[in-house]
C-alpha cells in the first residue's frame, strides 16, 4: 500500500503508527514536498488481518520473538482479558509482550482469577516487583 500526494505527484512517506488500543490502527503519511499529512485508519478487522500476517506497518525495528504471533494472539483458555487490559498490554513492546502476558496469566491462575483487568495488573506489578511492565 502506498500513498500519492496527487497535487505534488509525490509518493508520501510513512511518518508514524499509533495503536489507540481499541483494536484500530492509525498510520500517518507525509508528502516530502508539500508536507501534507494524511492518516490511514483501519477498523479492528482490517488491523487484525495485517496482524495475522506477522508484519508491522511502518516496519519492524526489532526482529520477531519466537512464537510472537501465537503468544500475542492465541487465547490460552486460562484467562480472559478486558478491553482495558488488552489496551494496556498492547503498549508493552512486542518483544516482551508474550512474556509479560504469561506473567499476569500465571499470577491470575494461581489466585483463581479468570479475568485480567488493569487493577489486577497493578496489583500483580506491585506484588511481583514488576514496575515498568
Amino acid at each position, binding site marked *: 500500500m502506498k500513498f500519492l500526494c496527487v497535487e505534488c505527484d509525490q509518493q508520501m512517506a510513512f511518518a508514524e503508527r499509533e495503536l489507540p488500543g481499541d483494536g484500530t490502527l492509525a498510520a500517518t503519511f507525509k508528502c516530502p514536498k508539500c508536507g501534507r499529512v494524511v492518516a490511514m485508519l483501519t477498523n479492528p*478487522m482490517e488491523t487484525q488481518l495485517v496482524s495475522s500476517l506477522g508484519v508491522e506497518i511502518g516496519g519492524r525495528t526489532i526482529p520477531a520473538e519466537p*512464537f510472537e504471533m501465537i*503468544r500475542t*494472539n*492465541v*487465547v490460552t483458555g486460562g484467562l480472559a482479558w478486558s478491553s482495558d487490559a488488552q489496551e494496556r498490554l498492547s503498549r508493552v513492546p512486542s518483544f516482551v509482550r508474550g512474556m509479560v502476558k504469561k506473567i499476569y496469566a500465571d499470577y491470575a491462575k494461581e489466585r483463581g482469577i479468570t479475568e485480567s483487568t488493569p487493577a489486577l495488573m497493578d496489583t500483580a506489578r506491585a506484588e511481583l516487583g514488576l514496575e515498568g511492565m
Partner: protein
Amino acid sequence: MRTYHQLTDPDRSGLADQIGAQRKRVAERLAAVQRIVAVMSGKGGVGKSYVTAHLARGLARAGRSVGVLDADLNGPTIPGLLQVSPTVQPPAMGLDGVKCVSMGQFIAEGAPLAFTGPAAESFVWRGAMEASALREFLGDVEWGDLEVLLLDLPPGMQRYIELCDILGNPPAVLTVTIPTPESRDAVRRAMRAAVDHGSDLLGIVENMVGGELKGTAGDDLAAEFAIPVVARIPWHPTADTWDQLGARISGARRTTDDAR
C-alpha cells in the same frame, strides 16, 4: 496520476521484506533437518496423527533423530499420543525421544483454538492467523539436527497448501487412508493436489485393516499413482508394525533432488 508500480520510492513498512524475512527464518531453521515428510489424507478420522506418532517412535527406536510438528492446530492430538506435557516449552520430548511441537502446548486442555481480536468477520483473518501459527512452528522451534521431521496435517488440503507456500518447496507426502471406497475417493483428491504441487509421494499407509471396514482403497490408490502401499496397519498393531514402516520410509525413493 501515477499508478502503484510507478511509485518507486522505498516503502518504509517494507512488508515484502518482512515476508521475505519470515521465509528466510523458516529456511534457516530447517536447514539442519534432513528430510521433511507431510503425513496427510483428504479424509478425516483415518488415523493420521496415530500413524504419525507411531511412525515417529518407530524411527526413533531405530536410532533416527525425529521431530513431529502437529499441524492440526484445531485438533491437536500429538502431545497426548507422545505423552508430553502441554505446558512444556517446545520442542517437547515425547516417548522414545521424539521431539514435538503442537498447539496443544499453548492452549489449555479442552480449550478450542481461539484468537484475540474482533469476533465479527473473523473468517477474514482467522485463516491467516492459522497460517502464521504454522509458520512460527516451522521457523521458531529449535529442533537441532533432525533426520526426519514429520508434519501431521489435518484433514483437507488447506494446511498442505499453506505448508507448500511457507516452505517454498513442497514436502514429501505420506498418505494415510482406510480401506473404504469413500476414503479412497477423498484421499485421491488430496493426492492429486499433492502431485499438482510437485510433492514426492512416498507411499500409502492403509490403516484400520482387517476389521469391519471393507474395501481396497490402498491398492486402488497405489495402482493409480504408481506408488507402494508401505504398510497395512491392523486394528491392534505391535511395535514391529511401526518399526517396519519406519524402515520402509527411511528407504523410500526420492524422485526429486530438492525433496527433503
